[in-house]
Structure formats: C-alpha cells, structure tokens
C-alpha cells in the first residue's frame, strides 16, 4: 500500500528525510527560544505563536511514512504530533494548528474530539481507563471550539468534523464524566434531538466538503450512503491532485501536503464505526483506494472481505 505515484521514490532517501524532519521537529523549539532570546525586535511570545515546526515537520514525517506504506511508523509520528499539544515548551497553537495535531491524535487514538451540548467541539484526552493516552500525560486542558462565533468558521468546522469522526473509536463508552452527554459522531450529532440548527449547518457543511459547501441545509443529516458518496467525491479531487504529480514525481520529496488528512480521518472514522456499512461504497480511483486502504489499516480493520473495499484500478499491494 503506497501513495500512487510514489513507486519511484528512493525509500532510503525518504527515510533519511523523515529522520531529518523528526530531528527538526524536536530541535526547533530550542532553536526558536535561543534566537528569540537574542532577537529584541521580535518578542519571544510573538515568535512562539508563529507556525512552528514542532508540529509541521513531524506531520510531514507522518505523511511520508504513510506514503511509503509504513503505517506503524506513521502512527508513531501521529502520536508524536498530538503529544505536542501538551508538550509545555511554550508552543502556542492557533486553532487550526491544534486541530491538525488533534486530527493526527485522533487517527492514532491518543486524543478524542467530541461534540457536546455546550460548545461545538472539544479536544480532550481519553479517560485513563482506556489506557490509550500515549505521550500526552501532561495534557490536562481542553481546547474548546464554539460555533458559530469561532473565527474562520467553515474551514475550522470542516476540520473539526473530520478530526472528530476519526476519534470515534468506541462509541459505546462515555468519554469523560465532566464533559456530560457527548455525541460522538457527526451524523448522530446532526440528527440528535435538540441539536442547535445553526450547529447542524456546520456539521452538514463539514461533511459536504465541496467548494460549494455553504449550500442549502436540509432538515436532517444525510444517510450514511449519501455521506459516503459525498466523501467519495472528495477522493476524485485527491486523485486528480496526485495525478498532477506535483508531489510525487520526484525521487525524494522534500515537502509535504500530499496526504489529505481530512479525507483520511473521515474514512478512518467510518471504518471505526460502521465498517461494513461504508465498505460497500467502493473506491473508483487509485487515490481513493489508497486512502481507504490506509484508513482501514489505521482502523485496524479486519475486514472479512478486504477486496470488497477496493475496485477499479485494483487493490493496493
């Protein structure tokens, strides 16, 4: 299972680059602190709030690992990325950066994002009883996103929805008694009695995931089948993006951005919750097959008929 287009990559170079990215992700906070302490024009706080490779470099390392089919290493990097939320090294995350870390944490089962009755969504860590907390022992706070007052709402909420979908790793168990009643999956949230219609708009738009995302809102959320088809539409764009080759036509990629984290999170969430229900909607493209195979591997899906998931250009190897 490799990212389509990556067949000619020199994996030794890719692994070398992953190590570089991992090293940079660890050294950048100390380097920023060192420079900031001598840079009197730019206050240290301002520098710390800027995009910081403590998160982005490790995210790219995860992308590369997933791209070459090393799922375990990719998840290790994903857990590492999520752990930066509680690293306590002065890193200040913007909401988007927190969501990126949370998305990776949700994929790796080290963080959870829940819908609840008071706010739109919160990033929390799983209860200790789950023993799924890996590397985020110090992360005791919650990051809360409110709707519709949050900044850059649509883009933010789309990412919340994707991250939250993947975090629905066990819908039967309460997450945290302090959170109160939680709605673990966007579909259920959208259809729940008493769910604020304004919030339903965001949930629905989040799953539409089209450039025309702010379309008219129906009374109810779409069915699972409709949902799967909508998300599959996004695969066409993902596949077209891969086919353009701008990220995959070199022997050793030196930049990321070729894994669609939202798409991967949605499929992972689908497979974690209703694998058979979603499996019958088949991928039509190489890119779609890759992202579903990766999601299935992340979900540790022991599909009875794995070939059922993929068709068209053939199942990934």
């Amino acid at each position: 299972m490799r990212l389509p287009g990556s067949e000619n990559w020199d994996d030794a170079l890719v692994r070398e680059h992953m190590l570089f990215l991992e090293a940079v992700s660890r050294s950048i906070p100390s380097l920023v602190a060192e420079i900031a302490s001598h840079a009197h024009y730019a206050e240290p706080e301002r520098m710390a709030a800027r995009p910081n490779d403590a998160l982005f470099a490790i995210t790219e390392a995860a992308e590369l690992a997933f791209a070459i089919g090393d799922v375990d290493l990719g998840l290790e990097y994903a857990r590492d990325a999520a752990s930066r939320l509680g690293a306590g090294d002065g890193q200040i995350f913007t909401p988007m950066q927190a969501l990126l870390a949370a998305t990776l944490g949700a994929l790796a089962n080290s963080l959870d994002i829940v819908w609840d009755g008071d706010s739109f969504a919160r990033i929390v860590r799983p209860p200790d009883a789950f023993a799924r907390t890996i590397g985020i022992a110090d992360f005791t706070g919650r990051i809360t996103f409110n709707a519709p007052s949050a900044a850059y709402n649509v883009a933010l909420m789309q990412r919340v929805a994707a991250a939250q979908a993947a975090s629905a790793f066990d819908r039967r168990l309460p997450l945290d008694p302090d959170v109160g009643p939680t709605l673990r999956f966007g579909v259920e949230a959208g259809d729940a009695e008493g769910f604020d219609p304004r919030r339903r708009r965001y949930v629905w738009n989040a799953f539409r995931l089209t450039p025309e995302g702010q379309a008219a809102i129906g009374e109810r959320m779409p069915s699972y089948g409709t949902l799967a088809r909508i998300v599959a539409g996004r695969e066409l764009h993902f596949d077209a993006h891969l086919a353009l080759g701008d990220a995959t036509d070199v022997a050793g990629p030196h930049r990321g951005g070729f894994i669609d984290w939202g798409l991967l999170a949605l499929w992972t969430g689908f497979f974690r919750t209703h694998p058979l229900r979603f499996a019958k909607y088949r991928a039509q493209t190489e890119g779609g097959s890759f992202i579903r195979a990766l999601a299935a591997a992340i979900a540790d899906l022991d599909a009875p008929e794995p070939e059922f998931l993929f068709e068209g250009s053939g199942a990934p190897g």
Partner: protein
Amino acid sequence: MKIHWCYKGIAEQAGFSDADAETIVTRSGIRSNWLRANPGLAADAANIDAQDRLSDAALDDHVNAYGAVAHDTPYISLSAGCHEYRNPYQAPNPITALRTAVGFATNRGSTSGYIFRCWAVTAPQPAPEVLGVADEIRDINLFADFYQYHHEGEITAKIVVPRRHIQLVTKIDRFGVPIAAAWSNGSAATLRNAHFVEPSTVANLLETI
C-alpha cells in the same frame, strides 16, 4: 515596500567556519557568489559590473537553474517561509523559514551549520534589475514562473545583505540544536551583531515631532 524578516542557512564546511560566520556579522555582510568570485575588482568597476549583472534572466537562472550559475550569481537566497497550496480540500501546508534554513545549514541533517537572522526590503512588484531592494520570489502572484522551489519561501537579495541588516547568527548541530561556537567574544551559540540596525528604521510609521 515591504520589510521581511528572513533566515539564511549556511553549512559549516572547509572554508566556512565559526570565524567566517562571525566575519559575515561583523564585517562583510552576506555576500553574493558574484561578489565572492570577484574579490579584487576595483570599487568603480564593481559598481558597474554588479548592476550589469542584474536582470530578469539572471534572476530566473538563480531561482530555476541555480546549479548553472551558482559560481557567480549576483543574487542571494534568503527564506521567509511560505504556505504551499495543494488543492481545495487541504489546508495550505506551512513550511517555515527556520526549517528551510536549518535544511540548508545542515545539508539536511548531515553537518553542523549557521543560521543568520536578517531583514530585507522587498519591492511590491518584480524588480530583478533594481539594486537596493530584494524580490519576494515566494509570492507567486508576482513570480508565477518561479514555482518549482516555492516551498523554500525565497526572498532574493542582491549583491550583498549588509551587515547592518543581520541581527544575529546561531550555530547549530546537524539536528538543528543550538551549540557552542568559537566566537571571538565567547562560546555562546548565538553571536549578536552589536551594530545591527532595527528594520523599524526604514518603516513608514513615523513618530510625532
């Protein structure tokens, strides 16, 4: 005009040591390869030749075919970072200036090196021939043909980055961690430039008289 903070990474190697990094900060500034390749040129001749070397084609060569002109390009690559745009469904991927500089300074994790922090004034439009302002190559609204290395977030200075623009240099190991250096005034990781001039000096926000 815009004023950018930038980073420049240079690897430690034979011919570029702590002393050379210190010389950049305290004496020479960051010189272009053209300037370094013409060390004995008389000032009058250098003034004329340097301006002659700046052109659309020369900038294109520097950005898109660096290997062919590396020995005497009049331009100097700095990084201010960038967001890489992929497709409508993916958030732009940020690649920070510091990561790019660390990559150059360490040859991607294989050697120790130096990170310089400096500022540059850029023109709001393409100005490859104009000495005195840098070009914001990373803005693909201005430099649409220079996309291949867009991820490097390049700001291209010309002939020399004056030492007054260089705030500091930090030595790093091959992993990007600050390490002690042998500066003439001590062994800290960072050497500050005592003669640095703040970029606010050329900003257009004026105090009252």
